[in-house]
């Protein structure tokens, strides 16, 4: 308090000093321009979220694509600025948006929120991987400012034309959106679509068309933000994507639905970032020398703001959504089958490790370690229905714990588990009271924070790579790669048995129940927040352990392996394998590792002017994204899909139920559209008076009876 008082008291004196004042104004202008960009990016997110009910994780990547296209047209081909902008904002970006809506998102009705989120994350990953294939993977791209070299002086501060244009565009966007959403037919229809597709159809609206329009608009706004932000930096694919991701924090201030609050969020975020960077750069005397201030502040501010805002958001109202007969159904695991499976896995790995070459052994060992990390998602995502985008970051903390404290004793792995679990509590606590999407956002922010703020601290991590000693249990050394590979299989097996037992016990039942109906669980007396925290801690602990083991494979902990981006394929492949099954994690882990191997083993041949090696390298790099997108068709994952396929073949040959009575678990489940229901409306916001009147005019009837009338 006194500190703040002192600052306040000295403020007039500070501002009186002319150079201080203009410095302050300079930072302010910088902040306002940044706020304008954040607002444009965040408003695009809000538009797609309020109109399609879908949080688009790929938003930042769309912005990145927009910026690269702009670079292509203006820098590479030398086109004039205005036509290039018009082409991108009015043609290319909207088309990309419509394409995404048509091809990727529309197939997603009747799937869970988890699957929908995962598909949008898959899209994010795919775009990040596609861009370097088109534009190369240099990190030296630069686009010119609008009216480069021109500036005006306002109150002693130089403001470039580019900055003025940016601010003007943001104001234009705000006015345009206000007008569009509240004063036009299309806008009102857009806002109605999200609340109830079937209902707005009854009203004569065409939800498909309005939904496509909103994706087109969101995509244009993302591209615009990407282009504006690109001018400020020398950029590369990932940096640009994550710059736009900062805007997520602003959108969360608006609870993903309010443009006004999003605007406030953008301004606060940008000013804090700007002052922080500016002033801390000036007098870093009291800060540790090794601290990279500018980088740390600019990365830490959005993450901290996001977590603080999450703490402040009032608890989401639980909704009674009705029983979900979704396409997602995985049978209960059976303990006998699990034991047989685990036993055979260890046996096969033991055999294979003997005949395998050294390089392959490393690759497949990595696959097993990745599978262990993915196991952490089985209780969290598979049973509990919560998404985490930070499992590889927890693994990274685990890897560094092992590198720091592991001298061959289990202490290192123990430290890995404890540190990852503690970090898990920190990340999850603010988000757990809220709906699943916020947990995904918080973990993504945390992953970015770990990569950009934690790992670069030379105080903690003097080098990016640290040697790791493998476990040495009771004189039994695992230094030999064969022994280590078998050891990994054994750990995977033990964890699998543990997780299956958990699933068959009370805690597993509670998780499953919580996924099926949070509202019912709460009214039965279950503390949802505590339950989610428990499973999140368990999950991050497993990830930490997996990270420690993963580092043991290459006998080194390398920060690159645990970057924010690495979290995406881990989640995608775990879900692709089948995240409700431990065997799904195994398949996911091995597949992910094999993508790296596959690319290496392809010979280089020219086919139709394309180098086969490059082609397959690209294909494997893209694979997790493509597989993730395909998930919309089979949300149960590869393992469940294969066993269903095998069963169908078996039944076709021997007749259904040849070996047992008809299994009620296996009756086909329909991808039901949600029943039209008054209780189901207002999913994302409460209706206004005229909307309620309009709706009541249509459905002041019991739908059940209405349908009974319709069918004579």
């Amino acid at each position: 308090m006194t500190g703040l008082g002192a600052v306040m008291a000295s403020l007039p004196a500070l501002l009186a000093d002319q150079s201080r004042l203009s410095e302050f104004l300079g930072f302010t202008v910088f902040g306002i321009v940044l706020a304008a960009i954040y607002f444009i990016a965040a408003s695009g997110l809000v538009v797609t979220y309020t109109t399609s009910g879908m949080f688009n994780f790929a938003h930042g990547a769309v912005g990145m694509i927009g910026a690269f296209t702009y670079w292509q047209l203006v820098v590479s081909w030398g086109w004039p600025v205005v036509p290039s902008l018009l082409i991108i904002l009015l043609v290319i970006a909207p088309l990309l948006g419509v394409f995404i809506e048509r091809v990727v998102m529309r197939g997603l009705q009747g799937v869970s929120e988890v699957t929908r989120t995962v598909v949008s994350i898959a899209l994010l990953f795919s775009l990040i991987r596609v861009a370097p294939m088109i534009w190369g993977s240099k990190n030296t791209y630069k686009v010119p400012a609008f009216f480069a070299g021109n500036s005006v002086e306002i109150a002693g501060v130089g403001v470039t034309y580019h900055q003025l244009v940016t601010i003007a565009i943001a104001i234009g966007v705000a006015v345009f959106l206000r007008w569009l959403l509240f004063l036009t037919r299309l806008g009102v229809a857009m806002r109605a679509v999200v609340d109830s597709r079937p209902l707005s159809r009854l009203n004569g609206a065409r939800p498909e068309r309005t939904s496509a329009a909103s994706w087109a608009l969101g995509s244009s706004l993302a591209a615009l933000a990407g282009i504006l932000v690109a001018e400020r930096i020398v950029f590369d694919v990932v940096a640009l994507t994550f710059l736009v991701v900062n805007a997520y924090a602003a959108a969360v201030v608006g609870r993903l639905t309010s443009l006004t609050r999003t605007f406030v969020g953008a301004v606060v975020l940008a000013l804090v970032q700007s002052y922080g960077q500016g002033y801390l750069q000036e007098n870093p005397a009291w800060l540790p020398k090794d601290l990279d201030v500018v980088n740390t502040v600019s990365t830490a501010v959005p993450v901290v703001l996001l977590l603080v805002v999450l703490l402040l958001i009032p608890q989401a109202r639980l909704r009674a959504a009705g029983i979900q007969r979704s396409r997602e159904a995985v049978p209960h695991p059976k303990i006998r089958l699990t034991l047989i499976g685990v036993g055979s896995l260890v046996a096969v790995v033991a055999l294979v490790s003997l005949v395998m070459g050294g390089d392959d052994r490393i690759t497949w060992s990595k696959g097993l370690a990745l599978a262990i990390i993915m196991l952490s998602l089985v209780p969290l995502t598979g049973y509990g229905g919560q998404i985490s985008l930070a499992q590889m970051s927890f693994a990274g903390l685990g890897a560094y714990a092992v590198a720091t404290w592991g001298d061959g004793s289990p202490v290192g792995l123990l430290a890995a588990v404890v540190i990852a679990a503690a970090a898990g509590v920190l990340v999850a606590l603010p988000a757990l009271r809220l709906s699943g999407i916020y947990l995904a956002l918080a973990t993504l922010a945390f992953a970015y924070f770990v990569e950009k703020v934690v790992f670069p601290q030379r105080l903690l991590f003097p080098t990016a790579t640290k040697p790791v000693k493998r476990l040495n249990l009771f004189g039994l050394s695992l230094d030999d790669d064969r022994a280590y590979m078998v050891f990994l299989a054994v750990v995977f097996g033990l964890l699998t048995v543990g997780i299956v037992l958990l699933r068959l016990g009370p805690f597993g039942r509670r998780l499953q129940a919580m996924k099926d109906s949070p509202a019912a669980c709460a009214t039965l007396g279950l503390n949802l927040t505590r339950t989610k925290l428990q499973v999140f801690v368990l999950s991050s602990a497993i990830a930490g352990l997996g990270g420690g083991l993963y580092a043991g494979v290459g006998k080194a902990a390398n920060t690159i392996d645990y970057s924010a981006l690495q979290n995406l394929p881990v989640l995608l492949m775990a879900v692709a394998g089948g995240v409700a099954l431990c065997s799904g994690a195994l398949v996911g882990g091995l597949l992910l590792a094999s993508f790296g191997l596959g690319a290496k083993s392809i010979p280089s041949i020219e086919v139709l002017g394309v180098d086969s090696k490059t082609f397959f390298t690209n294909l494997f790099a893209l694979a997790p994204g493509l597989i993730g997108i395909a998930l919309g068709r089979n949300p149960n994952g590869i393992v469940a899909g294969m066993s269903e396929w095998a069963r169908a073949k078996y039944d076709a040959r021997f007749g259904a139920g040849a070996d047992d009575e008809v299994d009620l678990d296996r009756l086909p489940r329909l991808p039901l559209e949600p029943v039209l229901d008054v209780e189901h409306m207002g999913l994302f916001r409460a209706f206004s008076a005229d909307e309620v009147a309009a709706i009541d005019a249509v459905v002041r009837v019991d739908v059940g009876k209405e349908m009974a009338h319709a069918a004579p």
Partner: protein
Amino acid sequence: MPLLDAKEVSVRFGGHMALLDVTMSVEPGRITGLIGPNGAGKTTLFNVMTGLQDPVRGRVLMNGIDVTGSPPHERSQRGMARTFQRLELFGSLTAYENLQVAAEIKRMWGGGTSVPADERVESAIELIGMRPFVHKRADVLTTGQARLVELGRALVTRPKVLLLDEPASGLDADETEYFGTILKGLAKAGMGILIVEHDVPLVMKLCSQIFVLDFGQMIASGPPAAIQGNQRVIEAYLGAPAGSGA
């Protein structure tokens, strides 16, 4: 003292008042009815009582204790349970497991019972007669069966007050008859039951006290005979054109 009190509760959705100064109470050992046309606000009132919806005004009391701001799980731990109009079963679990989860949750926070979870599940299964389908997955049950499972799931928490949102819709005549018998037995054992139902004859038969909601306002309350003769109720509900109500 009433088990459950709603005092001058108001709920707003946007510009629309779904409930306006609604007051009602549920007494122990009795079945109380809550009726009203579609969209009257009955489910909304249930949500306020169970903590799924915050009122803009008004209070909810359990046994005289103010629980207005407290989350759903705390109210449940004080002895409240409910069923849902749109079924909220745990679809990927079997009917048996649906009850088992509830019993285990109850055991977790104590609730002062020494009866093992399985025993309580078994007795609820017997009581409700859900033996034939206990091992089916909940999402393949018929609506009637599912409603019974929801009732059973609420009962294994041994609630003092039980809120039922249209429990008889989807049941056939025999099932409804049997259902009524169970409810009467529970009330006789001291439980306070609040039932929302469109099957008006059933409500008239079961309830000793009936409240009538219309457009978010409580327009009448009293014993069945008084409600049947109430002019406002007849206008709002019973006298509405053919098809509704009965």
